[in-house]
Structures are given as C-alpha cells and as structure tokens.
C-alpha cells in the first residue's frame, strides 16, 4: 500500500477528512522553503503538495505565479526539489506523510518520464499532480510511475461529465483531485452545495478518496469541504502567507514561518472539527 493510500486509510479510521497543503518548492528561498516543508505535518498537514515552479504556469493565478517566480529567482531546480524531499525524510524521520509533486509536464518530459519517476521515488516522493497532463496524454508517464511506485493523481473538473470520468479515473491512483471551480488557482470559491453534488457524482464512479481544492481560504470553508470530501486542499492562501512574511526587499521576516504554521493550524482545526461517519 502506498503512503497516500495508507494515509487515507488512517484518516478514515480516525473518522475525519484530511488537510492537503500546497507550498511552492524554493519559495521564498531554498532554506526557508525547507523550514516550512519540515514543519508542515506538525502544523496539521495530512498530505503535502510541493509545487515545482515553472516559467509558464498556465493554470495558476497570481499568488502561485509570483511564488514560482520568487523560487526560480532563488535558484530552485528539479534536483533541489528532490533534495528537499530527501532531506525531509531523513531529518524528520517522517515516513508516513505523503509528499506529492505538483506542476507542469515539461519538467518531467525534459528529464525523461522514466528517469523522473525513478529519481522522485528515490527521493521519497509519493505522487504527481501534473495539471497539463490529461488522460489523453498520460500513457507516456503512467507505466513508469507505476513501476516506481508513484501515484498519479489526475484532476477532475466541473466540466468532466459522467461519460468522461472513467477515463480520468483509469489513470488516477492515491486519490482523485476535484477542481471545484472553473478557473485558475486562488480565485473564486465553490458553494458547499456544488461541491457536495460533484463529490457524490464522482463517488458513484470510484472508491478512491476525493480531495477538493481551488479557492479554499478560511477554516470554515475547509470545514465545509471536509463534510463532503475526503480531503481539503489549500494552496494559494498558504502561499499568500509566505508572501506576507516578506519585507519590502523580499527577505523573510522572522515571523514568516510561524505565520504560515499558525494559519495551517487554523485550517487543520477546521478540518478536524468535522466528524465523519
């Protein structure tokens, strides 16, 4: 069983939903970014999404675009991202919290899908979320991911109808990521009713856990998602806390890391306050 599957099994046993936190690798610099990564589980993250910065993040809103630019300026690379994960596993001894890399396919393609999967697995990565790799193009990655023991979490959207869902699910493992709004990251939010309807619809097609993301900013919103989904995913709002912790010269202020953790703790409290059947 993969770390992701084990973590969702644990959450189910605990009768609660999980909190998935997104941070951009290398934002605002490699050192502070690692400090954030290291402390995420203690702050309340059940799963971690680590964003791989890309020059042209077409599916991301301004917050994550800017985070990626800060990280690229600070010198983040794919190898440095793998190193962060390797160091996390070694230094924290945390062998349970799943880490997923999130980003765009070109970085995978340039290294070669096979080598990318092997290197990621060796570093301690558990899954990929590649926003521009729909099932139609997933064949060149999937076998290598399977061979390396890496889960591929595909996205479903409000536009993904019942006829199309099986194609998406065929390539998904670990969990399914439901993009709850039409749009880019960090902009609008879905209503609880819309999320409930879609989650129920997806559940009719799969036993995989469902994570819901896009536009979740407050502990109350996270709790509302937790009532219906297996996990709530928060990204842009966390990345904005990183930005808020920078001074005018772009240097990290002393309260940056504690500020990020305090915010994640509040989100986690929201999610954990919901008891599931």
């Amino acid at each position, binding site marked *: 069983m993969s770390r992701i599957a084990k973590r969702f099994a644990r959450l189910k046993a605990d009768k609660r939903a999980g909190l998935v936190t997104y941070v951009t690798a290398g934002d605002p610099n490699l050192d502070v970014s690692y400090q954030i990564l290291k402390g995420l589980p203690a702050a309340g993250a059940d799963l971690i999404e680590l964003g791989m910065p*890309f*020059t*042209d*993040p*077409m*599916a*991301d*809103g301004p917050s994550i*675009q800017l985070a990626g630019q800060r990280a*690229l300026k600070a010198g983040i*690379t*794919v190898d440095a991202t793998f190193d962060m994960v390797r160091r996390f596993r070694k230094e924290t001894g945390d062998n349970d919290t799943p880490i997923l890399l999130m980003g*765009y*396919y*070109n*970085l995978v*393609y*340039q*290294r070669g899908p096979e080598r990318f999967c092997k290197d990621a697995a060796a570093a301690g990565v558990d899954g990929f979320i590649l*926003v*521009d*790799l*729909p099932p*139609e*193009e997933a064949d060149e990655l999937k076998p290598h991911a399977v061979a390396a023991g890496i889960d591929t979490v*595909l*996205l*479903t*959207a*409000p*536009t*993904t*109808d019942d006829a*199309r869902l099986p194609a*998406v699910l065929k390539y998904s493992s670990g969990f399914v990521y439901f*993009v709850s*709004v*039409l*749009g*880019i990251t960090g*902009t*609008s939010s879905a209503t609880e009713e819309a999320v409930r309807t879609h989650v129920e619809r997806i559940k009719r097609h799969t036993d995989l856990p469902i994570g819901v993301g896009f536009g979740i900013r407050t502990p109350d919103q996270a709790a509302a998602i937790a009532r219906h989904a297996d996990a709530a995913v928060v990204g842009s709002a966390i990345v904005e806390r990183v930005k808020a912790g920078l001074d005018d010269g772009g240097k990290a202020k002393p309260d940056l890391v504690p500020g990020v953790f305090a915010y994640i703790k509040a989100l986690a409290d929201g999610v954990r306050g919901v008891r599931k059947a």
Partner: protein
Amino acid sequence: MPSAPNSFRTGPDERGHFGIFGGRYVAETLMPLILDLEKAYNAAKADPTFQNELDYLLEHYAGRPSPLYYAKRLTEKLGGAKIYFKRDELNHTGSHKINNVLGQVLLAKRMGKTRVIAETGAGQHGVATATACALFDIPCVVFMGAVDVARQAPNVVRMNMLGAEVRAVTAGSATLKDAMNEALRDWVATCENTFYCIGTVAGPHPYPAMVRDFQCVIGNETRVQMMKAEGRLPDTLVACIGGGSNAMGLFHPFLDDKGVRLVGVEAGGKGVETGEHAASLTGGRPGVLHGNRTYLLQDAEGQITEAHSISAGLDYPGIGPEHSWLKEAGRIEYVSATDDEALAAFQMLCKLEGIIPALEPAHALGHVIKLAPTLPKDNLLVMNLCGRGDKDVFAVAERLGMKI
C-alpha cells in the same frame, strides 16, 4: 529520422499527434471543451452551408483571392530566381490572419458562444479577431503583452476602435507567450460561454489542424494562380515563421509535390549564435507548452526561455507542432534571418517595389535576398507577403533614426 510517409498531408492522427508532436496538454477543465470544439469543427467542415458562408466572406469581405504578383524590379536586382509575392498583405485588416479568424468566429457563432478571446503578438491577429467580432456582434477580449502594446501601438488603437477590449499582460517577458498564458487562464474560467480564437497553428488539438485548414486558402490559390501565370507549379516557396500559420497555409497544399522546395524563415533576432533569437526549430528542442509538444526555446531543466525578435509577431519561443514534425521528416528547410537582415529587406522592398511590408515577412524577404541570387533565372519562387507594414512604420523609423 522517420521514414518518409506516402503523404505529408494526412496528419494529425485522431489524438492530434503529428509523429511525437502536437497532442492535447491542457488542464482537465478545458479538455471536454476542446473535445467539443473538435466535434463542432468536424461537423462544420462537412457542412456546405458553413463552407459557403466562409467562402463568401473570404471573397467579398476579406478580398480574396489575394494577387500573385511578379516582382520584376526585385527579381532584376537580385539577378536569380523569378520572384513572385503572394499578396496576403492586401487582405482586409492587413495580413493573412483574417483567413483563420473568419473561420473560427463563424464556428464560435455556430457553437452558440457569446464571447471571444484571443492572444496577439504584433496585433495582426488581435485586429483580425476584433474585426470579425465587430461584424458578428460578439464581445471580444484580446490579450497582448505589455511590451507589444508599446511597440505595436497602432494596432492597439485599431482594436479599441473596433470595440475590442485589449488587456495588457505584464507577466513574464510581457510578449506573445505571456499573452497566450493569460488567454488560457481566462478561458479556463469562462469556457462555458467563451470561444478561444488562437491565431496560429499551435495550441492543443484541434487548433493546429483547424488553423492550418483555414490558412490553406493561401497555398490553394497560389497553385491555381501560378498555373495560370507560368503553366506549371512553383519551384521554391518561402515564408516567415513565428507560430507558423502563414507558412503552413502556403506550404501545406504543396507538401506532396516533391519538386517544390519549401523554406521556412524563423526570426534570428541578434543572431542565433548570440542566444537572443526566436528560432525555436534552429535553436530549441522538443518540449511541452501551451497545449502541445513542439520545438521550444528552453533551458536544460525545461524552463521556457525568452525569445527575442524585432518583430512582435515572431517573438515566441515555440512553433506549431506540424512544423516540428515536418522538420524532423526533412520535408521543409528551416533557416533564420536576423533583425538587421529583416530591416534591410524592409527598406529594399519599400524602395524597389513600393510595398511597405510588415516586419514578419521582411524576415522571409531577408532570406530571399540571400537565396534568390543562388538560383537559376527559371526558378519560380513565391514568397508569402503575409502582412503590411503600416503597424511597423513608427518602430522602424525610430530604429533607423528617421525624424517623424
């Protein structure tokens, strides 16, 4: 290298691939929409009503067929190949872009879409889209890099006059690539009512094939016109390439005529060897961006690098996927012309033929100036003069130190 297929004109396959190139690398939110678009386009293509309406507009609104003009003075000056221009700069709106836009906006109307968005570099595609949207009374938003807004100001004014909203994009290098990112971001949020009118033979399937089909009118006309003028097919075709739509439109109908030499001219910027250029095929390698796999300018990791060109329309780090395939298949030669060569060609054409070309086809001409003298006098060469230079006169004047 793949073995030569029986025909170069059968692609893409049903998944939108030209060999390893092309495809549909888009967010899931858009995936059902581009599948719908593909269906709607295939239905429209098979519907004579659609084709008739498009043909009528191309003839009576855009002014097609564009002339095939024998450039006698240029031919005599260069002393080699007999040079013809396909005069697509005489189209309504001043470039070949209108050919594609009329097709796509008709399709948008047919699909019941109530809003059209587009990206633009030089502004020619933006102006064409704004024009068609005015004609069909559809609200139009054009995304344009802030750098391009400044260097192609006349086109921004034109778009505004035509009722379109121009959104200046300041992200990244603030040029065509970033305009396309922003258009995709808009589309993912508005896809239920919005049609994305892509300006070149790039993007996710079916765009590269659809835009090519709409632009093939250029090559189809050239074939007929050359038969009438000379009684045979041309020997050499030359066109500039940014995303590659004017070149594909001219070349595609000739891909299976083995005797016709095809030459695509990329923007060499300050020189391909300087690294400051927009020649994706010459200086790039395959990667995935903007919905398709194609040759891209990028670093070792796969981060996209900035293109450089004096021409806003060629200033793009990628190229249409079918060009990437045809390069690897060896059917089309791809070369480059620098900023300075394009500027020299621009001035030569003004004075020799009384035609002010856009900076984009000035690149094609920059190569023709080198190529034509090496060819025999009976070599029939057609260059696609795909845009007129009205939009460029102030920028060129400034570059040449002319007083206005």
